[in-house]
């Protein structure tokens, strides 16, 4: 499809390719630089696989000092740098460009410190999200933000995109759970922001860094909050006859001041896809399904559930099904968290990430269905309903360029619909390359200019992940 442009590669950088590779080989230990053409191809994209650019080289440093050395070198010669965690971005945040050196953090995957007294964990940026929870789970703790790709995605990538997840309804997204970072600036300077306390004196630079999509520097270490596991947790399935009714029910639950840990939404196509993979026992005769998870003591869970069921009845809920065992609860979540990948069984897809005010959910669901129908496409909706973070998966055939272009067009219309309904382009996946050109639909010029001014203060040459986030036209001169 290729409707979104990248910055043209710098001829001066491409011309020095062999020299650059030679210099990087000197800066890194053996086995830490990928530079053969064949071996570079697998790094040409991430999970937003419609767009691909083979990078100039891929550095896989093992230490912060090595990251700093590579950054310093690239800065000196004006070579673009694209950071990469596990390459699971759905917005193309880790897609490189021909003149870029990718800095991959996959070899920096050690947990450095677990501090139960302060309820923090300090980890290298290449540690996967789930590995943090796994490490502290035997002691009764977990790391709360849980993107569906948590098995594979890295904490560094989570910070870059300010990632969310199903359980963020109660616990907040990455920025609410991040306490400090060690970060390499564009010129190779290593700085530390935040610490183990909830707030640090001075400017909240940590808040700026979280969600900056690798454009302000490369985070190499992070200190995150650990949260004590609840006494108990129970996912309950609510089946409805229509998506709009399920959406309205979500708005009423939250409107009544009830905040469960998670409210997830799946429509009929999504239910079928997830059930085929996980065998979780989702009802197969409903148009829409809510997975509502409550947690706490038995009494707390019972009380909250009773209130939720009452609201659901008012919306004509058809099926209410509690998970019967820990195994079934795990399957319910496995199915939900595998939804995107499992969609690969039936079609290619692109995943939207628009977020809308809850009162607008039924309206936007209806509008999405209309857009999809107008383009002659299919859609599966599976998303974090509790915080209005919608993920229509637009299904298409990647081997048919016209179909792919239609899918991309429909996606843009859906995102504009979200913005027009008072929402925003992205709830948790980041802007990346995917939503870059829609940023002007989201922001007034002065607002966007202010963001770019901050970005330029960190990276005056605009060499860090340069093709992303901000529209190519109207950028300040480097």
């Amino acid at each position: 499809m290729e409707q979104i442009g990248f910055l043209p590669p710098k001829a001066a950088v491409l011309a020095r390719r062999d020299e650059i590779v030679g210099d990087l080989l000197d800066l890194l230990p053996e086995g830490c630089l990928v530079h053969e053409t064949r071996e570079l191809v697998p790094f040409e994209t991430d999970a937003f696989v419609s767009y691909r650019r083979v990078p100039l080289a891929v550095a896989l440093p093992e230490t912060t000092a090595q990251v700093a050395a590579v950054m310093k070198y690239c800065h000196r010669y004006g070579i673009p740098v694209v950071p990469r965690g596990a390459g699971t971005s759905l917005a193309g945040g880790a897609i490189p460009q021909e003149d870029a050196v990718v800095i991959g953090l996959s070899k920096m995957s050690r947990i450095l410190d677990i501090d139960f007294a302060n309820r923090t964990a300090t980890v290298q940026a290449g540690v996967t999200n789930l590995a943090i929870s796994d490490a502290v789970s035997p002691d009764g703790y977990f790391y709360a933000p849980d993107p569906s790709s948590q098995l594979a995605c890295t904490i560094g990538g989570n910070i870059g995109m300010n990632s969310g997840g199903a359980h963020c309804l109660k616990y907040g997204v990455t920025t609410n759970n991040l306490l400090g970072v060690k970060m390499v600036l564009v010129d190779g300077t290593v700085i530390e922001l935040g610490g183990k306390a909830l707030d640090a004196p001075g400017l909240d630079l940590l808040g700026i860094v979280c969600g900056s999509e690798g454009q302000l520097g490369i985070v190499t270490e992070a200190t995150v909050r650990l949260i004590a596991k609840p006494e108990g947790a129970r996912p309950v399935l609510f089946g409805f006859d229509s998506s709009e009714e399920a959406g309205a029910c979500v708005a009423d639950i939250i409107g009544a001041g009830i905040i469960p840990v998670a409210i997830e939404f799946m429509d009929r196509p999504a239910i079928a896809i997830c059930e085929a993979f996980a065998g979780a026992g989702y009802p197969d005769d409903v148009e829409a399904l809510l997975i509502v998870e409550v947690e706490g003591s038995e009494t707390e869970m019972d009380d909250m559930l009773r209130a939720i069921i009452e609201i659901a009845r008012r919306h004509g809920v058809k099926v209410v099904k509690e998970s019967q065992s820990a195994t079934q609860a795990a399957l319910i979540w496995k199915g939900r968290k595998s939804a995107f990948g499992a969609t690969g069984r039936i079609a290619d897809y692109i995943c939207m990430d628009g977020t809308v005010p809850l009162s607008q959910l039924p309206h936007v669901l209806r509008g999405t269905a209309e857009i999809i129908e107008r383009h002659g496409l299919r859609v599966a909706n599976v998303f974090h309903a509790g915080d209005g973070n919608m993920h229509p998966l637009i299904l298409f055939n990647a081997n048919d360029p016209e179909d792919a272009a239609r899918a991309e067009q429909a996606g843009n219309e859906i995102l504009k619909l979200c913005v027009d309904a008072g929402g925003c382009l992205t709830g948790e996946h980041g802007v990346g390359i995917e939503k870059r050109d829609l940023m002007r639909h989201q922001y007034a010029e002065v607002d966007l200019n202010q963001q770019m001014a901050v970005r330029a203060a960190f990276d005056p040459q605009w060499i860090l992940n340069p093709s992303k986030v901000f529209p190519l036209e109207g950028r300040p001169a480097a």
Partner: protein
Amino acid sequence: MQTNFTAEQLADPHVATSEKILRKCVHCGFCTATCPTYVTLGNELDSPRGRIYLIKDMLENGRPADEQVVTHIDRCLSCLSCATTCPSGVDYMHLVDHARMHIENTYRRPFWNRVTRNVLAAVLPYPARFRMALHAAAFGRPFAGFLKKVRGLEAFGAMLDLAPRKVPRPSPSARPGTHPAAGARRGRVAILSGCAQPVLKPEINEATIRLLTRLGVEVVAPAGEVCCGSLVHHMGREEQALEAARRNVDVWLREVENGGLDAVIITASGCGTTIKDYGFMLRHDAAYAEKAARVSALAKDVTEYLATLDLPQQEMKRVNVTYHSACSMQHGQKITMLPKMLLKAAGFTVRDPAEGHLCCGSAGTYNILQPEISQKLKARKVRNLEATKPDVIATGNIGCITQIATGTEVPIVHTIELLDWAYGGEKPALLG
């Protein structure tokens, strides 16, 4: 994922199959997280997603394999942990099988690598040759340390390290013949005698035959059976693998006609994964496709068959068993709970190690061909196993037994040896 093949390329049935597999991959990256080599090396090229991309690029461009592609495909254990993780249902096993075949057909390996692989293919599948080689290894052992340091010869050093110090005597269980059921007959099965296993650990099939016959099952070890072909199959030597498959299909179907078979019992899960795949491997062979599919349907891991016999709950034994699930068992055949349920019913306390999904580094001939990564995985596996403080480790694959035994003092036995003991057989010798 988008693919780019010409109609002419797709006329090759192998390419057509691989194209369908590639189309399912959505490049989500989940597979990287559970891949033992990615976890160890931290390079996407040594992950399933990276390999899938390398294979895709090679096949789409109709290129012969090259050093880079071979390096990363060779590092794949074929443990299939990725296939368990993959939500999209990407059939990685058959994709990497195709890549290995393509490598074998289009790439000339460096001299010593060729020699090593030829030696393995000429020795391991043949019990008599393998036994001789093990005896010979006693003389080579003093040189193991030296060989491991010579570039190109590391594999020979690894082989010497793995060779047991004492080679058991040939077992009657490996000879063709029929072992009648004790008492009333409730079933009839063929048992795969195997190639390396009867030489290294004849007690595994001895225990199987004892237990099954005691339970009223007639066990036949048919004449003419050969190695299942898994070893050469994983080297990409497809013709040799298919020839082995055809011979075994003939042998077992002859037994089906002469007396009937309820199952072909396999006590090495590595072999089980391949035999269950005979139907796929021979799908383009008009004379064998249907026959091979029948054999694949008959193939059962011994624990799958035992689970149909309703074994009674035994008294608790106060023996802590940590169950190591072989990759070919949990990922290849998707048998996860059965062996543990049988062990629990037999009166053992069963524990799972952390990171149970990660390979121990055995993986057929991997511990010989990729000793460095294999050693790292072994150390990690042993650490996780020992952390559970087991009296004994149980598993269902001879490769894992050999590999793990060289890394720990804790005895490791085949699941069936414990079950035989619990249901009236001998206590495994290793348990004293």
